[in-house]
């Protein structure tokens, strides 16, 4: 038999032996190996001892009024907890997945509104943008036309031009 400690992935065999879950034939093979392999023997003995100790351990008995005292303590805590903490705890104690999903959807909608929505151009410093000659000439064409048309409020001056 191949040594379970030396070969990877075979330690389960020793664990099964310790928990008495091997069939008789496999258990006999392991026992034969343990007789010849001090490492496996030491490992198995240590496990057996630990499990034996756990089997012997007895949990301390709960006092008869434990549950009543626990409820009183919770009720007392609720009385002394600030309202905001109580609201937060009632909110946080429950699964938040649906609420968080809704909040995420709303935030995405908000982001869409903010970024997709056309906004007025931010103010630009007069010298910040260089003037293109073509645009300037086109603007001057329009200005000439506006000048010829004249201001509605400046009838006489415009007619004189």
């Amino acid at each position, binding site marked *: 038999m191949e040594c379970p400690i030396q070969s990877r992935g075979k330690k389960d065999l020793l664990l099964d032996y310790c928990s008495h879950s091997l069939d008789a034939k496999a258990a006999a093979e392991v026992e034969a190996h343990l007789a010849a392999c001090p490492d496996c023997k030491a490992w198995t003995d240590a496990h057996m001892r630990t499990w034996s100790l756990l089997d012997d351990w007895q949990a301390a008995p709960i006092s008869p009024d434990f549950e009543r005292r626990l409820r009183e303590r919770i009720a007392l805590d609720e009385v002394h907890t600030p309202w905001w903490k109580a609201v937060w705890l009632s*909110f946080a104690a*429950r699964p*938040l997945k*649906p*609420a*968080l999903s*809704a*909040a995420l959807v*709303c*935030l995405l909608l*908000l982001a869409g*509104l*903010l970024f997709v*929505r056309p*906004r*007025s*151009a*931010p*103010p*630009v410093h*007069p*010298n910040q*943008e*260089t*003037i293109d*000659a073509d*645009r*300037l*000439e086109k*603007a*001057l064409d*329009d*200005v000439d*036309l*506006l*000048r*010829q*048309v*004249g*201001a*509605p*409020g*400046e*009838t006489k*001056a*415009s*007619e004189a031009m």
Partner: protein
Amino acid sequence: MRMLIAVAWVLLMVAPVAAQDDEPPPPPGAPRALAGPTILDRLEAMSPEQRQRLLEKLPPERRQRLEARLKAYESLPQSERDRLRRQFDSFRAMTPEQKENARRLFRRFMELPPGRRQVLRREANRLSQLPWPRREELISSPDFQHRFSPEERQILHALAAITPNP
């Protein structure tokens, strides 16, 4: 319930941000207000060196022509330049189609007899004192339809459009 609370919370956070951006839409036909300086503002803010750099890139003939036009513009009285800047600001707020239409109408306006131009200017002056909805109402009123041809009414509309809303 939790979902309602979450949605209400998000809406509360969003409301002030959204409200900041809620400008009333301009009346139909009215130019939109545009932020930022016009090309004329930038032109006036240019230093002599910046202007030199702009002009020196141009072919000599074009450069001379542009220099002359700039000189003519700058020789206008400040009040006239201010008026033109205001009108240009309203003009640039138009859509490209509206601009092209306004250019065509202004050219047609210049072809009218001087007396008729005088009448239209006077009427445009009266309209410019009114808020946008009232201007629209008057231009399409039976009185205007009787006194002005359809093209003249369009011209009045365009003239009113380059006059800022009082």
